[in-house]
């Protein structure tokens, strides 16, 4: 049987479906949210259940500067995507670079915080329950920042090579959804670890 019999007059009605990139990314974000939810639940469940020190109030310092950097990178990546959509490739490169720098600052900041905790305060992942939950939750987030940064660096290299065109704005837009998600998760992690958890 020929399937040609199904063909109606072309373009009889406009047939528009959602972008698969956006739908795919939103689905991935839903899956990632479920993973983070489990880690956050474990963190909250174990607050104050450590049987030995050090305790959160002894060692945690609120990373205000880091937080400002990461949250503002959401704004800069948005500006970058908007610039590319308007075919302003140079402006895109500038804002993309700023995003990369802000993300790197956050990651370096987390690294320095961990170094201080491990070598000065003597808290490792196996010290007590606080250490286990703290390093896994913050580490899971830092892992996502790292994955995002790898993506950002790749796109930055393509930009410097002059390979990025306005036609790519859809892909960059889909990627920026992931970065916004990583930022939003930080708001939750920050609240749980540095506000509620102390």
């Amino acid at each position, binding site marked *: *049987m*020929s*399937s*040609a*019999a*199904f*063909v*109606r007059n*072309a*373009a009889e*009605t406009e*047939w528009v*479906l*959602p*972008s*698969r990139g956006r*739908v*795919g990314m939103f*689905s*991935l974000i*839903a*899956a*990632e*949210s*479920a*993973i*983070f*939810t*489990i*880690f956050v639940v*474990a963190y909250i*469940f*174990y607050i104050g*259940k*450590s*049987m030995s020190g050090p305790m959160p109030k002894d060692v945690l310092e609120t990373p205000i500067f880091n937080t400002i950097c990461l949250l503002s990178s959401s704004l800069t990546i948005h500006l970058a995507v908007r610039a590319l959509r308007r075919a302003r490739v140079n402006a895109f490169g500038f804002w993309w670079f700023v995003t990369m720098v802000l993300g790197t600052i956050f990651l370096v900041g987390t690294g320095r915080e961990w170094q201080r905790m491990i070598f000065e305060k003597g808290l490792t*992942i*196996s010290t*007590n*329950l606080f250490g*286990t*939950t703290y390093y*896994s939750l913050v580490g*899971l987030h830092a892992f996502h920042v790292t994955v995002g940064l790898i993506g950002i660096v790749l796109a930055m290299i393509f930009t410097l090579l002059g390979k990025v065109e306005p036609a790519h704005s859809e892909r960059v837009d889909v990627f920026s959804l992931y970065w916004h998600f990583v930022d939003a998760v930080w708001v939750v992690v920050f609240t749980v670890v540095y506000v509620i958890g102390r």
Partner: protein
Amino acid sequence: MSSETIALTAIGEAERPIGERLHDWVVTVDHKKLGILYILYALLFLVVGGIEATILRIQLIVPHNHFVSPEVFNRMMTMHGTTMIFFMVMPILFGFGTYLIPLMIGARDMAFPRLNAFSFWMTAFGGLLLYFSFIGGNGLYGAGAAPDVGWWAYAPLTSRAFSVGHSTDFWTLALLVSGVGSIGTGVNFIATLLCMRCPGMTLGKMPLLAWLNLVVGGMVILAISPLTAAQIMLCIDRYLGGHFFDTQAGGSAVLWMHFFWIFGHPEVYILVVPAFAFVSEIVPIFSRKPIFGYPIMVAATIAIGFISFSVWAHHMFTVGMSSYGNSFFVFTTMAIAVPTGIKIFNWLGTMWGGKIQFKAPMLFCIGFLFQFLIAGLTGIMLGAAPFNWQLSGSYFVVAHFHYVIVGGILFAVFGAFYYWFPKMSGRLYNETLAKWHFWLFLIGFHMTFDFMHIPGILGMPRRIYTYEPGRGWDIWNLIVTVGVFFQIAAILIFVGNLLWSLFKGDPASSDPWDAWTLEWSTTSPPPDYNFATIPVVKSRRPLWDLKHPEDPDWKYE
């Protein structure tokens, strides 16, 4: 869009060397090839998991049996459960979904073909990793072989102190790896169904199989992720000395149970909703009637999807939750029976007054209907907390969930297998052998799992490797084990039919069942590009419209 065509490639090119053709299967991103790979892979593990189950049942055939040691019994029990859930039922359902979804919605492939291949190979290597434990599980300590912690791997059995060697690590990593693959499949299902439908196919005109797999996709990404998270925590505990589930450092063994079952119960619905999807496609075709209550079927499925995330702790009534917790989970468990019951009535409504053809796919679906109903009824019994306190951890529970998975899901899978075999292979199966398969499997199933309820009620605990004579369990265990051999005979007939039909079966036309959905509009097997011209649909039964231009469906929908 509808004018989009693909230049037809020359068909009948000279047979290429076998190596090259196998290479094609390894590097393929075609949803049909990947779907068939999933199904073959799952059938392999059906045999492996079946052998493990047979070993368990032979050990239990008489009291004080010495067929295998207690250690081997525990390993077989763990591997049987893990294999059947993660490497048999899930892959075979994903395989059918991967194969059928693009064909049913008039698309040429999934939304992300390479992600599709990635997902399959992650699942495949997850299975290999699990079975490599037989060789690599000894580790430096020289203790342990295959995982022996049960498929639920409760803490503290999984801690370093009680599980030396690497067997538990292989279990954890296998589920972590295959879980990533499953999440990829879930993302792909959702994106394909929302973004790749052919012109005219609004959400309300999708075949029910497509709708139900959309719900499955959503459940997969939300339910497999907690398991992935829990496996990461277990890895941290075992490799980095973490304390998530280490009660001596303030950790909680009960938290693992919550994390496992918040995956574990939606998982049951991830497995059964695709089975519902098969039945919803097969029953109308062999009753010669459109599905009864399409919108209600969709609504009931979405309701099941939502409620399934709030019932998990009915696996934990004996842990000692608060009375409020117990009441809540009893209530939600009762509530989920309502949309499930609606579905059963809708299938019966579809059959009612239809011209029923008792072909093999329909027989398996009718078996599914009755057996799934009974499985649901014992589920309601176990969902009542006081009854559960009495029978939790007994063979009654084992009988209940095998009634769901074998009597419900596996019967529907066999039905789907026979129904779509002509489309996938281009050959007709042997109906006589298929009927032998059905009746033998039905007898074996009922001997094994009907009678398994009774030793459970008489107090026989699950997971024991042997038992004392004279407790009234002996005769029941004997009958249960004898039933297994009927099932083995049926599976041998099934495999034989599969191989014989594949090579010697009569060629199948593009539409051997006089069916109504788009996959039957293209050749059997479909070409690489599925449809030379992207179809345009106007109703839920596009082929009915085509065959009956004088009385098309779209006039009434």
